[in-house]
């Protein structure tokens, strides 16, 4: 165990290695991780900047794969987000519940893994970019105009009206229709903004 101590930037040779170790540990806890905690009064969220350029940093691979909305929803469901109406028992944080609430109103809540893999396989014919397929799966455009905002430079890539209709037919056939978003009205959870708006928090 002894021989495998991590290198804490010790001064080689000179000086007390123990001292250097403890002081670097203390400084890490004081400076690098908790310098600025801004409490956002809207959401009680603390913001933290991890200093990527310092020594004791998080090494990372920024993009290990893009996830569709469905996959994130599936992940939350697998942890029990859907079963728990009290929202206390399942091991899911408040932020994750907010994400869950958001995703349940998107087309992702009616999709399954087979549906989206099937859809992306069949999209091969139309030569769409990966980002566009992702957009289509997440948004589920139901008309040409909705598709227009997703496709980039369709005329230059040879995607004519017929191809757009083909894509829409595929969407209609393979992707289930999105849920109906009810009128939010008084059910919206809002902060009291100078007493102007009603704040009724509804726990769903």
């Amino acid at each position, binding site marked *: *165990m002894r021989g495998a101590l*991590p290198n804490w930037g010790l001064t080689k040779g000179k000086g007390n290695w123990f001292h250097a170790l403890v002081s670097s540990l203390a400084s890490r806890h004081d400076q690098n991780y908790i310098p600025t905690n801004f409490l956002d009064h809207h959401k009680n969220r603390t*913001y933290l900047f991890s200093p990527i350029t310092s020594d004791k940093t998080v090494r*990372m*691979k*920024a993009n290990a794969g893009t996830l569709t909305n469905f996959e994130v929803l599936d992940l939350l469901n697998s942890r029990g987000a859907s079963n728990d109406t009290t929202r206390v028992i399942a091991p899911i944080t408040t*932020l994750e519940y*907010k994400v869950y609430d*958001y995703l349940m109103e998107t087309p992702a809540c009616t999709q399954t893994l087979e549906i989206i893999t099937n859809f992306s396989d069949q999209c091969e014919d139309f030569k769409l970019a990966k980002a566009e397929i992702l957009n289509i799966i997440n948004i589920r455009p139901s008309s040409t105009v*909705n598709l227009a905002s997703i496709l980039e430079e369709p005329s230059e890539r040879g995607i004519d009206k017929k191809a757009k209709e083909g894509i829409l037919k595929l969407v209609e056939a393979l992707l289930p229709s999105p849920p109906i978003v009810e009128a939010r009205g008084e059910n919206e959870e809002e902060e009291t903004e100078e007493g102007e708006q009603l704040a009724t928090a509804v726990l769903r």
Partner: protein
Amino acid sequence: MFCLSELEDTVRVPPSDLNLPLEVAIKKALQKLFLDKVLSIGLCVSIYGIKSIEGGFVLPGDGAATYKVVFRIVVFRPFVGEVIAAKFKESDSNGLRLTLGFFEDVYVPAPLIPTPNRCEPDPYNRNQMRWVWKYGDDEFIIDDSCQQIKFRVENISYPPVPTERAEDAKPFAPMVVTGTIDDDGLGPVSWWEACAPISDDED
């Protein structure tokens, strides 16, 4: 909208958690450290899974065990060009602000609202301004009644932490998504519900 990121970090498990199974304790420490925080890669939403754990050394003078953990997290980081459905939050003379529930700093600045438009003081809420789009003879209002507003991501910025702020300044937003609603199919969903394509070569 979401992607996975693989990170490696040194995690300190406090002594009070040492009776828990290792994975649970490390996950708890990771959640406390990363969840709901904005890193350079985006807003961390959830811990996807732990890939490897090494170490477990107890350093002198400290009762906690320190592990080197490689794990994956789900990060909210929309890409430029992504179309996202959001809800209206507030608007002022600079533009609109939309919210995604879990992320509230989506701004649509005035130049990216379809023209011609005008901004008028909101008759229902004296602090806010209301944006109205004039198309042909119709006027379309952008306000709270819009159920869903679709926007396309133009830019994501991570403003640096300010050192000084005025007392009544808006809470600091470490991640700001700028969106546009100035295109076919964008903006409140109700605008496009009952419309047919005008011409074939619109592009």
